[in-house]
């Protein structure tokens, strides 16, 4: 959708997108020639059409975990209430009894993520992220490790993935 300032015959440019209010967005455009401003106020159906395409209106703000094209997932709330569900009991294959003991001994302790590992996590779709975090932390505990770094992620990929 484009907006044209008729008196100036000039395309208007997006200035701001207001936060959603009961399914409505307020998108402000202005004319670069005369400065005239107008707002497009969407109804819930129009907002939904854009959401359903998996896009946002306007430029990304730079907060990758919330607004990048890969992370600002329109499906963020699609996992039913209560998710993420714990993953992993008997995930794919053998777990050593040593691993099980280590997991039990570290179960209550928090697992730290390095900045680089967090960045990888932030780079994947939001609807997968909680499950990924839970599964990786379980894997780390089973290794007797309480920090997830890129090396740990690579090991997990080799263990679980294609």
């Amino acid at each position, binding site marked *: *959708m*484009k*907006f*044209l300032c*008729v008196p100036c*015959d000039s*395309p*208007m*440019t*997006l200035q701001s997108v207001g936060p959603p209010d009961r*399914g409505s967005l307020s*998108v402000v*455009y202005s004319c670069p020639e005369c400065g005239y401003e107008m707002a497009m106020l969407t109804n*819930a*159906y129009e*907002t*939904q*059409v854009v*959401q*359903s*395409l*998996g*896009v*946002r*209106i*306007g*430029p990304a703000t730079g907060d990758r975990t919330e607004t990048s094209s*890969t992370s600002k*997932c*329109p*499906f*963020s*709330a*699609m*996992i*039913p209430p209560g*998710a993420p*569900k714990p993953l*992993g009991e*008997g*995930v*794919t*294959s053998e777990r050593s009894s040593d691993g099980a003991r280590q997991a039990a001994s570290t179960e209550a302790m928090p697992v730290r993520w390095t900045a680089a590992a967090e960045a*990888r996590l932030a*780079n*994947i*779709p939001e*609807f*997968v992220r909680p*499950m*990924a975090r839970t*599964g*990786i932390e*379980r894997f780390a505990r089973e290794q007797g490790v309480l920090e997830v770094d890129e090396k740990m*992620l690579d090991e*997990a*990929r080799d263990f*679980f*993935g*294609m």
Partner: protein
Amino acid sequence: MKGYYDIIGDGGSQILDQVAEQRARITDGLAGVRHLVAIGSGKGGVGKSTLTLQLAGALRARGLRVGVLDADFNGPSLARMAGVQQATFVPGSDKVSLPRTASGIGVFSMGSLIPESEALDFESAARGESHTWRATREFALLGEILGSFDWGALDLLMFDLPPGAERTVQYADFLGSFDRAQDSPRTSFVLVTIPSQVARGVVARSVAALAKGPHRLLGYVENMSGYYCRDCDALKPLFISSEASDLGIPCLGTVPFDPELARQCDMGIPFDGLQESFVGRAISRVAQRLLEDLDKPASADATRESRAGKEPRR
């Protein structure tokens, strides 16, 4: 006064750029995939998911690199069948690593993310009106999955489609748009039916719907084609059917119903144990035929018949 096409750019909404970016990610993600094979029907309950996974198993047993995407987001069953309900999703440097079965088949299924006791739901600004937007959102989800997972180098990526003739066509349009070139389509369709006139009638509608577009339709598989009795080691009729209608596309093979196969699917046991069984051999024959047909030029298969707009014979 300027018109829409006189104005360069989109005024700052950047929606077109984002859609283009999404498509680029999907194209990039599928770059290493040789064949996209969609298993559909139109009819529900004919064994699409079972056949998809078992064919993937038969192909994997031949040493091929195979991935499966459970595109039935609302009724995902492949996570259970493939034994990846408890899959761990691992973030890579750019994409998510694809969970794999014990035999090395990559599987994505929403069943790995959502417990069977819960239904797929989307946040919506227009709740209560999902009929107006739900399909669009599901295809956006499909795009997100295709663009976000590491499919790697695969010989085949198989799609287990949801029921519905119109959905089959929507997937055909979506996947076909990522074919490298119209002259050598990468996306092929296989339809599944059972020996009942009701099912064949629905599948015939899917054939007719696919025939309206430039889609490569390899043929159909008749599932539940008799009941295999392990006690008698004999094939018995499962459906008492009058003369079968001609779907107008090649039959790629028939697969009998075997309760042991159903049990293994429920348990998430892979194909390996069934390879030498009666049903296993039937599935292997279909897999062989599928491979042969995929390697033929598109002009030599059922697509030609479909493109000619030929109606299925009844």
